[in-house]
């Protein structure tokens, strides 16, 4: 089931619109000024349409809601109505709908959250040439119902959406302030006013005060994990679209699910990139061309190890100490076996770079700059420890080598 906004060829749906409003010139009055939405079922057939007209000062009116006769009672109408209410809750505070005084129709709107507003006496007898009948009753007065759109979205669902977006951001390397900002933007868009969030480097707490006085609170634990900036970018774009009123709750949930499925780069690309980073930075830090090429090779092999360790969820301590040791061992081996003299430091410094915790380091600084010392310190310790682990790995291997080789100068 999909709902589309119809901007062109609105007359194509005239037949369906006439089911709800049998006089064509009455439809013409609002068709061009209004926004039209159509609900398509899984067989790609339009099953329901509606037209909404916005009239300044935060109001809008549902002018027409028609469901194909043979598919009534399947919930298409209420689905479409719910979608439209959510959509218009961005700009409007109240939605009105005028209908004949028939229990069936009025009951439908009441079930959808509408309440009685006022009556336009004699509307049907004045504006329609032919007498109208609905359910055997002649229609005379138009009953207006209204709905408070600021309550169109369930605050719990909006909070869940915000939390989910925040979780994905934090998991993939978003900063604390970005997570909190996104949560606040999403909640504000859906008129959830009393929100409090508390975000840590690996957890989010969100608490919403509901209109009925209860409090809805959720806690989400998010383990520190890898960085995927494409996901951060995608969630950021989605959050902008939500704030601009372009995306509703259901669609946003679907989009988030898709975003989470964005795969990381192919493993061989990552390996090559690690090698290239090693080679380039080795060359920058005064290594010769040959050493840089060796750094490239070592960097590639190192990253194979990192990827393997990631797949088996090894601890950071092991990955980095072993990584450092691995790099040094390879550099020493190459130095001994290669016919030409090679400088050890150039190769090792270059190959260390893929292990350097740039992400944790930069994010820690960002958090501290935002006075979020708790998360900042946690991430900073994470980054500094990785530096220490690398140094341990490198130092250990160098030490063992110089001892076993009888103090050969390194």
């Amino acid at each position: 089931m999909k709902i589309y906004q119809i901007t062109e060829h609105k007359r194509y749906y005239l037949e369906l619109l006439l089911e709800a409003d049998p006089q064509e010139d009455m439809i013409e009055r609002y068709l061009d000024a209004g926004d039209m939405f159509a609900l398509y079922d899984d067989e790609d057939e339009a099953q329901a349409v509606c037209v909404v007209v916005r009239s300044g000062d935060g109001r809008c009116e549902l002018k027409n809601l028609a469901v194909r006769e043979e598919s009534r009672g399947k919930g298409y109408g209420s689905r479409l109505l719910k979608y439209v209410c959510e959509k218009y809750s961005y700009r409007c505070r109240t939605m009105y709908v005028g209908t004949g005084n028939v229990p069936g129709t009025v009951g439908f709107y009441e079930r959808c959250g509408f309440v009685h507003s006022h009556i336009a006496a004699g509307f049907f007898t004045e504006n329609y040439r032919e007498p109208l009948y609905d359910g055997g009753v002649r229609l005379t007065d138009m009953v207006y119902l209204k709905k408070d759109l600021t309550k169109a979205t369930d605050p719990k669902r909006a909070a869940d959406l915000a939390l989910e977006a925040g979780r994905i951001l934090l998991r993939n390397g978003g900063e604390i302030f970005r997570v909190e900002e996104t949560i606040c933007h999403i909640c504000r868009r859906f008129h959830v006013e009393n929100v409090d969030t508390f975000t840590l480097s690996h957890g989010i707490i969100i608490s919403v005060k509901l209109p009925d006085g209860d409090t809805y609170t959720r806690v989400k634990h998010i383990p520190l994990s890898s960085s995927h900036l494409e996901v951060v970018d995608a969630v950021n774009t989605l959050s902008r679209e939500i704030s601009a009123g372009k995306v509703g709750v259901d669609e946003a949930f679907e989009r988030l699910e898709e975003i989470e499925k964005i795969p990381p780069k192919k493993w061989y690309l990552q390996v090559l990139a690690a090698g290239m980073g090693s080679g380039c930075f080795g060359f920058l830090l005064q290594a010769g061309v040959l050493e840089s090429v060796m750094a490239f090779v070592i960097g590639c092999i190192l990253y194979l190890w990192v990827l393997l360790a990631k797949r088996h969820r090894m601890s950071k301590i092991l990955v980095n100490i072993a990584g450092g040791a691995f790099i040094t061992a390879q550099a020493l081996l190459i130095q001994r076996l290669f016919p030409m003299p090679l400088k050890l430091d150039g190769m090792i410094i270059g190959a260390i770079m893929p292990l350097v915790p740039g992400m944790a380091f930069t994010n820690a600084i960002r958090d501290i700059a935002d006075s979020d010392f708790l998360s900042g310190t946690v991430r900073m310790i994470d980054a500094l420890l990785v530096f220490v682990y690398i140094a341990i790995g490198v130092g250990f291997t160098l030490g063992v080598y110089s001892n076993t080789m009888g103090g050969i100068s390194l």
Partner: protein
Amino acid sequence: MIGEIARNFVINFICPFLGTVAFSVLFNVPKRFYVSCGFVGAMGWVTYCLVSARSSAAVASFAGSLVVVLLSRILTVKMKCPITIFMISGIFPLVPGAGVYYTAYYLVTNQLGEAAQRGLGALKVAFAIVLGIVFIVSIPREFFQPRYWKKRWFMRRNAKGA
């Protein structure tokens, strides 16, 4: 002479450019940002080189990170994406990876004086980067939006007119 300049250009611009792009691949940055990431990293390194010829490594790293973060913030507003994308990979050429290596090396070879010097040097560079980032990050967001300056400009012109 020209050969020298070309060589310097390749070493100090192309190399950090490629290196930064390589790291942005590791961080799964979307493809469309590769060039800007590389540019940010390369500019940071160029600044580092220019300043370090006349000053200490810490000051040079500070200047480099200032440039990296400034460019990142400008690009963020322009391309409407999280600042992290440019900053994390752009800061990489400045990270004291060599300091870590030399510290470990001197520690192992029992040259403790040298080790302490290198270790503190690396820490100083890290702090310089921190300061550089904090300085630019603390600038209010409006300053990076062209709309803000346009508004200010109009206001000033109107004030003069009146």
